[in-house]
């Protein structure tokens, strides 16, 4: 009986030790602000790169919260605090609103108007397949493909068809302006269409602890050619603007390193960190950059990927139905063909 008693005591002690409390903030206005600050403090990955003093930011915003702060007021305060990170991947979602930092694109010219291309370059005679609009520009027979979001995958057979339909084109324009990102697996599938050999596509880093400098060693990852599908190894011009973001930013960072690709337009919007999600005691969902992805040269792309040829579009040019970024891309392809034929 003594053995049984000892055993029961042992089991009880172990059960109690397994139930030690997890630290959590109370579901009050200040508790939620503290939880938000702490979660970002422990998971956000760009404090050092952006030289942000997160402690001082807390001291600015915490005094704005008191026991009479309403939920909507708290949301505004939290949103303003998160905006200090100047990061489009940072959002706070309440039942009535999701906060966004828009400065990463709103402070720059848009450099893209879909209607200008659809009307003045294609006379609305272009093709649509999911998130892709494509066609052949005349009279130079340059292929054009606009991919609006990496959240939507292009089926392999669709991409095969699109590239085959452009088999007589001297070059291809891949337009990812206003592409806000999506799935990195779709980035890999599309990049694979332009590869002749396996490449180092970038490096990924993750946080190893709660400190602002606790990072793993960069892990290199590779992309391989889509050898079972139609590939495009002729000249490619990649069009980007400031609203080219997140996964599209990663796509640009990889594509621009390929020898037959020229990037034209504006510096992309960045968003080089894969988001990490969490939540607050009141149930609001939180998202922030958590794992930086570096370009094939090991450089951060959080501040965007600069083009080989920088071109901006003025409102006057847009009003006149011209897209100088697209025009520059056509010139580059036509010139490359002419240079080869000489």
């Amino acid at each position, binding site marked *: *009986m003594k*053995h*049984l008693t000892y*055993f*029961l005591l042992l*089991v009880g002690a*172990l*059960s109690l*030790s*397994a*139930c030690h409390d*997890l*630290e*959590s903030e109370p*579901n009050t206005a200040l508790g939620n602000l503290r*939880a938000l600050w702490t*979660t970002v403090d422990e*998971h956000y*990955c760009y404090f050092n790169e952006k030289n942000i003093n997160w402690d001082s930011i807390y001291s600015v915003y915490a005094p704005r919260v008191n026991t009479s702060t309403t939920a909507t007021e708290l949301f505004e305060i939290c949103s303003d605090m998160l905006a200090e990170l100047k990061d489009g991947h940072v959002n706070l979602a309440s*039942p009535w609103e999701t906060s966004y930092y828009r400065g990463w694109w709103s402070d720059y010219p848009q450099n893209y108007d879909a209607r200008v291309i659809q009307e003045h370059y294609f006379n609305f005679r272009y093709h649509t397949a999911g998130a892709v609009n494509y066609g052949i520009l005349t009279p130079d027979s340059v292929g054009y493909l606009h991919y609006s979001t990496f959240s939507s995958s292009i089926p392999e057979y669709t991409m095969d068809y699109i590239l085959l339909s452009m088999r007589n084109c001297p070059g291809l324009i891949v337009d990812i302006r206003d592409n806000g990102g999506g799935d*990195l697996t779709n980035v890999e599938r599309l990049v694979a269409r332009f590869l002749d050999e396996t490449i180092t596509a970038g490096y*990924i880093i*993750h*946080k*190893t*602890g*709660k400190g602002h400098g*606790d990072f*793993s060693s960069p*892990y290199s*990852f590779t992309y391989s050619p889509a050898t079972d599908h139609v590939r495009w190894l002729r000249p490619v011009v990649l069009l980007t603007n400031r609203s080219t973001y997140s996964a599209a930013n990663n796509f640009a960072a990889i594509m621009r390193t390929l020898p037959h690709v020229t990037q034209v337009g504006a510096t992309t919007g960045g968003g080089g960190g*894969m*988001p*990490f*999600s*969490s*939540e607050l*005691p*009141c*149930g609001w*969902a939180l*998202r922030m950059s*958590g*794992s930086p992805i570096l370009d094939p040269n090991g450089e951060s792309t959080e501040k965007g990927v600069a083009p080989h040829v920088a071109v901006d579009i003025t409102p006057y040019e847009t009003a006149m139905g011209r897209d100088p970024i697209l025009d520059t891309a056509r010139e580059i392809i036509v010139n490359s063909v002419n240079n080869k034929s000489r």
Partner: protein
Amino acid sequence: MNRCLLILFIFWASVVSAQPRHTLSVLAGSAHTADTYLSPLKYSGASTGIAYDYKRLYQPSMFSLSTQLRGSRTMNPARNAVMWGADLMLSSHYMWRLPVPSAIASVYLGSGASIAAGALYLPRNGNNPVSASARICADAAIHCTHDISIHHRPLTFSLTATLPVTGAFFRQAYGELYYEIYMGNHSHLIHWAHPGNLLAPDIRAAVSTTVGKIYLTGAYTLNVENSYSHSITHRCIYHSFAAGISF
């Protein structure tokens, strides 16, 4: 070759002829889950599952085999997010009887191995919606039974507890997304398990009796999966009531 077959046949025959005790149970109860990789909040809700137990006495020893499949649905304190859980556990133990007078209880103490795998899924998280867990461990195990009779009805009370002592378990790094693992980075995923970073007691208190020709079992079970590594706390606590039949 023939000798091997003969040995296998003798082993199989001995097992089959030993009147094994199989128990099939249905479990239902509460679930308390927390995984700081997914959320700093504690979730609570319900769980359900099925279990199969096999016990065979080889006086003075005992062999046991247990499997358990469970699902859970828990919600955060604000009740606006659901976390789903599923896990499968398989364990096998061999125990020896301790010199405790039969009038008090039959007590068996031993060891064995357990394998468990599962995942918590929080759909609201975009890139980190899943926290997977897996372990293979050497366990300590104890089994006590006590037989009484109430109104000429035989009742068997039993208490079984197992505790992983050492082994290995899977856990991604602090902020590591599964995409990175998918891309091929498999370093630092397997950890040496010890009571300081993995505590997973499995306790079952049961009472069994016969009703006609049917052997019925009712039980309370406590299952805990608690691990800590890479500054991530993963914890699932299940309190369940089980009803089963033995044959």
